[in-house]
């Protein structure tokens, strides 16, 4: 496999992981909205589903994007595809 193919394999792998996490917190958990709301886990005292829609999911998305960007930069570096600073 060429260097470019390997790079793309890894990039795609990262995409699937990122989208999986995204799916859980944007879609997956809301299938169980009513059950989660009754849960004893109450972040900052808020009902669980309410908290996820106000802050939880939103905050996780912010962190997820920065994590994704960091990982992708590592992959690009590994294969020598990073941009030069003066580009």
């Amino acid at each position, binding site marked *: 496999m060429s260097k470019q193919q390997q790079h793309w394999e890894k990039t795609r792998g990262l995409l699937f992981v990122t989208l999986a996490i995204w799916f859980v917190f944007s879609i997956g958990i809301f299938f169980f909205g009513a059950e989660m709301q009754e849960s004893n886990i109450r972040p900052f005292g808020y009902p669980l589903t309410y908290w996820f829609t106000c802050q939880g999911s939103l*905050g996780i998305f*912010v962190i997820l994007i920065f994590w994704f960007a960091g990982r992708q930069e590592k992959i690009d570096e590994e294969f020598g595809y990073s941009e030069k600073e003066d580009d």
Partner: protein
Amino acid sequence: MFKGKFIDNLPKIYGTYTGGFLVFIILMAIAEQAGMSAKLIGIFFVAFTVLIYALIGYLSRTLQVDAYYVAGRQVPTVFNGMATAADWMSGASFVAMAGGIYFKGYGYMALLVGWTGGYVLVASLLAPYLRKFGCYTVPDFIGTRYGGNAARLCAVLVLTVASFTYVTAQINATGTIASVALDIPFGIAVYVGLASILMCSMLGGMRAVTWTQVAQYIVLIIAYLLPVFWISNKLGAGVFPHFMLADEVARISELESQFGLGTVKNSAADLATVPKGLAGITKAHSDVNTTPWKFISLAVCMMAGTASLPHVMMRYFTTPSVKSARRSVGWSLFFIFLLYSSAPMLATLSKLSLMDPNLATGIIGKSIADVQALDWYQNWNQANLMFVSDFNGNGTLELNEFFMGGKAVVLATPEIAGLPYVISGLVAAGGMAAAMSTADGLVLAIANALSHDLYYKIIDPKAETAKRLIVARVLLVVIGFAGATIAALEIQGILGSVIWAFDFAMSGLFFPLVLGVWWKRANAQGAVAGMLLGLASGTAYLIWVRTGGAGFWGVTQLTFGIVGSLVSLVSMVVVSLMTKAPDAATQRMVDEVRVPSGKTVLGKQH
């Protein structure tokens, strides 16, 4: 004062600007104490901020193509994040969102999740690759990747439909705020709003819009957060409301059952006396009160729509590198998060202020005559945003007898909670900034697509730079006027139009964009089929449901993008596989796009 290049001095420049704005707020507060009238304070706030944006727009004027279309591709990561956040957060986010949460609760909060989750798709599927491509506009990518004028033209069509639906809502919002703050009729205020929007974008295109959007973000975030923190502290609810309102949320649930939410229903005859557009509280504040599919389908539409709306995507064309485009998406979402996570808190504080009989501001359970005598009630009742009526004739205001417009939650809460008027003036300026910044981005997206893709790439490829930029500016004015004319007709509410825009964009552009990067086999015929059939089927479904059609799969007029995008995906894959694979040059181009290093696919000036 500022040595060296403009870009190197950005933190200093915007730091000074923020300081100046805070000083302005303090001066206004002093003026209020000295007896300046509320009306005059409102005028000062809106006029002063709009003049500043116009000045920035004038200073950023340019005669260069890449500065006009992509701000010279030198906008630093964090500043591009701020500009995108302002571009993104429209009048709907600023003025309508907290109100929606206030009235509809959980079912509405799908929009919070959808309008933020979409950025994960932007960062991982599209933004860095489109940046590497080096296009000026979204149709520029579609046209070059798939080849041929047909694909380019279809992309221009979808972009125009989606963005135009969106922009009328934004011009409507600037008109509403300008008419209230400056005390002029709506029909004239719409054109005042339009003039301010054009002043920011006409001379400098993307460069001017970028630097005004950063300034607008600073105004709108201060205007949103300051009242939230102030009210929370005033009520003794918590120093940092986001982490400390759990007791208040629980208290609202308690009051809801005490006041018989949902048990006392208004008769149709009673409701007929309530002015149009106003609503009472009918849904529980924090309960899960909607079916999972309804919540999820709305969130999915907003997420895919986010990744297909061209005015957001084109902001990531302005960063210096692919790496910074990726990080910039993270910053955008961070700046958006600051406002979105505050909207539910504002809704909570607003509702508690009105409902809790233990608070001085509480009105439910008080005598109707007392409420009608309140200053703020009279103001907002006159503005047609508040209404009370003694349906059961007991002389006391019940929960089901108080009605409010969605906009009033953001605009009136500072006054209800007893904050000085200077805060209300600030909020008006913030709403104006939010609506203007989005309208600017949208008008520019449409005008750029028409001038670059339709005029330059298809009609007259030999046009000189000066002529291209003149055409771009003329189109900007024409589209602005068309938008204002339709906005003045007030066909659809602000929020409804915005949601439709997302569905249109998702129907026509989501899969053609994503598959353009992630599926090499996708070809021009497939993309054209995907865009046209997606847009057509989505639109047909919308018309069908609007005219009384039953719909299927629980897809409503707010989520018709699900139908459109599925048709788009299937037709694109089927047609692509039935026709010839893209040629070797196109395949190489896709390979190029997939690695960050090296030259952009399209040249620096094209």
